[in-house]
């Protein structure tokens, strides 16, 4: 029962008696020349939507059932019976100007000089998922089992062995082929990469050529995505919600301490604790926290690297300033207090840069509702919104610790604190205004993904979070106006809640650019969307 033929030829079709022309049409028969690369050709007129390619891809790569490097989507248009439903089958588009690659903080991607294939290294990857946000086609997918991202590599090793990729092999209609493309010529005219249901090809210069049905009928002229009625909420990235909020709080606090000339040892120590906590939380966003340090690598290119670099510097300066502030108590009579202020201002400078880099991470074209001026505005305003009440709240522990130290004969500077309700009122007002303008702009936008984000925000799952977040911001102000000093703590809690909720909404309500998917599908665990 074991098969007797010793060797099955490279193309499964060949043995069945298919013509050599057909075989040659699946993969190129000549080697690549200078300036050329491989690309996919997808023939929509041949595809019958059987989804064999999806299964074959998962089998080829041993992937879990929930991760599909090749996906099939549906497009539909027309009026019964002049109606058309066609299919998209897409792996990676192996773009000429790949955004996944540009954003990667650890240089895990490379555009293969031999084949032009955009390759990803699971060993270099730290699982930050920035490529997932950057790709307009949602091609890279995070695998929680591995803690790293993975993606279609056009079955590079098979191609090098002169074998067709798994998807092309499996397609019963020969709708998927590998072709050679001249990169310069394609960059000048990539119109054949465009298709209904696909984001505009120009952003990254997708190399996949798509043969569309001739729009001879009304139906094919209006082919549209069918998956837009129920877009699932995105992942909440809770560690990023906490980390960004906490980093912004510590940055805001430091600014406050510096502005009210309160850079005493105890306050700085408390600030240092907040910062350390924030940075520790941040690494747990990564699939591989132990390799967080690698993220420094690509600071010349990646905003994520820059964020890590700036916040590392921020932490370093805060640590140094704190140590300097404590030197009078140390036995060696190092009188370094005068360095505290310059170090604090250096920390503030890196904090400004870090917060800006942090916001810039989210200014990606593939995530339109993040890619707005409201994102950096929000990050800076949130720093103030949490920083101001935090400044007041720290008074109590700082005074207690100082008193304790004094009692034991340690002379440290005495912090002085006041409440700044008017400043907080102004900040909260601008903060809420920024959100409101953002929501209004999302609603009125011509971009589908913006409007879809708006629908998420006003949908039954999220609208109350939006309301609660704004109410919390107002409440923070009211608490700070209260005559009771301990109410500052409630103000801090309310402000923190406002920022956390708002950040949660920021993450879950974004609607990424993506290829059109199928109407019925497993929409994951993030829940159903607002229509």
């Amino acid at each position, binding site marked *: *029962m*074991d*098969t007797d*033929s010793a060797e*099955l030829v*490279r193309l*499964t*079709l060949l*043995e*069945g*008696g298919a013509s050599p022309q057909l075989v040659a049409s699946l993969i190129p028969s000549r080697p690549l020349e200078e300036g050329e690369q491989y690309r996919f050709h997808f023939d929509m007129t*041949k595809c*019958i*939507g*059987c*989804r*064999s390619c*999806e*299964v074959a891809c998962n*089998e*080829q790569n*041993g992937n*879990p*059932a*929930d991760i599909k490097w090749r996906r099939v989507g549906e497009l*539909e248009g*027309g009026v*019964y*019976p002049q*109606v*058309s*439903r*066609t299919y998209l089958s897409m792996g990676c588009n192996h773009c000429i100007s790949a955004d996944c690659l540009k954003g990667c903080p650890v240089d895990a991607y490379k555009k293969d000089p031999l084949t032009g294939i955009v390759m990803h290294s*699971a060993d270099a*990857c*730290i699982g930050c998922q920035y490529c997932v946000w950057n790709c307009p086609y949602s091609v890279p997918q995070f*695998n*929680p*089992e*591995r803690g*790293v991202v993975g993606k279609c590599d056009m079955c590079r*090793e*098979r191609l090098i*062995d002169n*074998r067709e990729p798994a998807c092309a092999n*499996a397609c*019963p*209609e020969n709708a998927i082929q590998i072709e050679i493309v001249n990169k310069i010529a394609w960059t000048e005219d990539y119109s054949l990469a465009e298709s209904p249901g696909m984001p505009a090809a120009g952003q990254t210069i997708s190399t996949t050529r798509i043969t569309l049905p001739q729009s001879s009928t009304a139906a094919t002229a209006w082919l549209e995505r069918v998956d837009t*009625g*129920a877009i699932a909420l995105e992942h909440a990235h809770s560690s990023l919600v906490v980390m960004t909020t906490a980093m912004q709080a510590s940055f805001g606090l430091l600014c406050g301490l510096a502005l009210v000339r309160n850079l005493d040892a105890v306050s700085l120590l408390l600030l240092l604790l907040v910062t350390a906590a924030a940075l520790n939380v941040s690494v747990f966003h*990564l699939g*591989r*926290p*132990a390799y967080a340090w690698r993220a420094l690598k690509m600071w010349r290119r990646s905003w994520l690297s820059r964020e890590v670099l700036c916040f590392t510097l921020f932490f370093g300066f805060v640590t140094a300033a704190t140590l300097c502030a404590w030197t009078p108590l140390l036995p060696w009579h190092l009188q370094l207090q005068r360095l505290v202020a310059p170090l604090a201002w250096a920390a503030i400078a890196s904090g400004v840069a870090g917060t800006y880099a942090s916001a810039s991470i989210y200014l990606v074209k593939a995530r339109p509702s993040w890619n707005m001026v409201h994102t950096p505005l929000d990050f800076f305003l949130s720093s103030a919104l949490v920083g101001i009440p935090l400044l007041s709240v720290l008074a109590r522990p700082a005074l207690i610790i100082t008193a304790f130290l004094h009692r034991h004969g340690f002379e440290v500077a005495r912090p002085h604190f006041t409440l700044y309700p008017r400043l907080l009122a102004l900040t909260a007002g601008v903060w809420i205004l920024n959100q409101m303008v953002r929501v209004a702009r999302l609603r009125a936008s011509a971009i589908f993904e913006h409007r879809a984000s708006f629908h998420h925000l006003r949908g039954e799952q999220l609208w109350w979070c939006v309301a609660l977040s704004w109410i919390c911001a107002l409440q923070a102000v009211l608490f700070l106006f209260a005559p009771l000093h301990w109410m500052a703590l409630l103000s801090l809690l309310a402000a923190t809640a406002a920022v956390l909720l708002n950040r949660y909404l920021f993450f879950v309500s974004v609607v990424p650019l993506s290829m059109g998917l*199928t*109407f*019925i599908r*497993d929409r994951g665990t993030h829940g*159903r969307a607002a*229509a």
Partner: protein
Amino acid sequence: MSFIAKKNTATQRANATSEERIALAKPTLLQRITRWLGLDNKSSLYRYAHDPRFGYISESRVADKWTKTTCGYCSVGCGMLVGTKDGKPVAARGNPDHPVNLGKLCPKGLSEHLIVEAPGRAKQPMLRRNGRTSPLEPVSWDEALDVMVSRIGSIQQEHGRESLGVISTGQLLTEEFYTLGKLVQLGFRTSNYDGNTTLCMASAVSGYKLSFGSDGPPGAYADMESADVVLLIGANIADNHPILCNRLRKRPGQLLIVVDPRVTKTAMMADMHLPVKPRSDIALINGIAHILLRDGLIDRSYLAHHADGLDDFISFVADYTPEAVSKTTGLSVAVLESVASLYGHAKSAFIGWTMGVNHSTQGAMTVAAINNLSLLTGNIGRPGGAPFSITGQCNAMGSREASFTSSLPGYRKFESEEDRNQLAALWNVAPNDLPTRRGFAYPDIVEASVRGEVKALWIIATNPVVSFPNHNLLKQAFDSAEFIVVQDGFYPTPTMEYADLVLPAAIWGEKEGTYTNSERRVSKVNAFAVPPGEARADFDIFVAIAERLGVRDRIYPGWTSTHDAWLEWQRVSAGRMCDYSGFTWQQVEDAGGIQWGGERLYRDGIFPRANGRALLHCVPCIPFAEQPDAEFNFILNTGRTVEHWHTRTKTGQVKLLDAMVPNAWLEMNPIDAERLSLRQHDRITVTSRRASVPDVELRITGIVAPGQVFMPFHFAEHNSNLVTLGDFDPISREPNYKQCAVRIERTSWN
């Protein structure tokens, strides 16, 4: 139903989501910590390697042995290679040498190796000791079979032999169908035995018998390639037989015409789609015949030599003028004229059909009407010309030929004394041991159980709770049956809710024998795995039961394996139309399957009717029974999708397929949705006169006509057969799944 809530958890990495894989690993504390820190990215589990046959691939899919076999899903009958490593299945590939599929498989086939070790396999016999309310408890095989034989025996003693009803399947090996037939008819001695094939292709069988005197699809897949015109009626092959699609659109100039009220994937492939009104296909066919006769586009010499009934037919179709047919079908006169002319002028014309035709109270007669067209134009028995039933299950054909249900083995007739004598002689039994008439067909067994005539049921490899129409009636039947045995490869299935005894069976991949596909191609099926737990091959179960009934030596003399059944079946089928005697198992395997009867039947124009001539039938077009009205204002159509197989006992176990299409949906035209103020993804309730199916996801789409809705029948969770009509073809006894009246209401907003 409690089984629905039960979520099977993965038992194998290959068939698991990423979260399930993490859970499957059962990591130690140290591994947890290294995983948590990301020190281990599991690269050893995601390595690639070079498979000597198939090249660079995930190391987890590299096999040390490849076994040739035939796919166990649909009747296309694709040749496969299943790779095993250390005896465990790791990969499924199309067999590039197999003439049916040339190395290609659909997504179900490509993932079929995952079925064998799926979590929901039946592993031990289970018995309810104290009635249906008590739980199923594991028992030994000895006890299980003793209980089965003694309970059925005492019921038969009290209520007569015919009080046992047996409902089988299209999933077993031909050798097993042959074995089972003898056991039921000669061991249990009940003729109330039928297969679930009556739910799918009985109309084709009956229609062939009406026109040609015998069952047997006359054509071959090759005819789909070589025909000038391919006319598909009620056949959505792109979803249901996807590997047949590559036979089409291959030859330049070939014209594909698809007749379907819904704009299916197959209709999208067509050069011409004819969006007929539901159940107006007979009018369309008669209308084409009318034009062919009017314009002289018929093969007069073929008709003169090989067909009866032309005169009656001519006067009958005189009424089916293009104008009248246009009114019935909703197609324009110009379209009708053009289709008839294209069909009539074609050098060769192929008509394929599936459930759109068969699932009807007029299914058998519709098939006869299709046969009329082929006879009129002489498109039968020659390349490219055939009236061709594309069957459903992997071995529905084996069951038709060998199983002793709708006919005696080898297409012999119950009613024919000559046939009975011949068979009795072959078996060395007395002729009066053989039944002289067919017993109850599947729906009649169900109705007989409601009436109390059938008291014991033995259900083999089928899942009527999801697949039988009008579920309420079936429930009554099951509730009134005294003893129900369910034999299946999976546990639990929805039908096992009603089982008193569960027998765990081996499935595809664990048994050796043959399947016969739609084009009569007998293909070899091989084992590459052993059944899980105590599960046994159906053949072994049948033999063990025969042993207990004391008939083993009489009906299975000296048999030890399915090959013994094959050898006897060869002798029994020798000289019959479905003659299996000309080839051995090995020859079948080496050739990638061999078609009994050659590439096509009736090459000489001699038909197995008494006078050797086929018969033209006058087939009136009668509107379907349950027309929409003010209260139930939609026509419900049901069907399938490519990712799933029948009631999902198998594909529901394959995580990848299940995640692709995890739930049922209802398709509705935008005009109706607007009228009912429904929105995409709303949850709706489908209600018929019989029952309701709540919470179905709504898909508003132009691929269904206004006034019609469509729903897949795969899902126990949203069971379309709660609402379908329990109305059956008087000839074939096939249910009318395709049309019933329903209303649609919102369950909840999206």
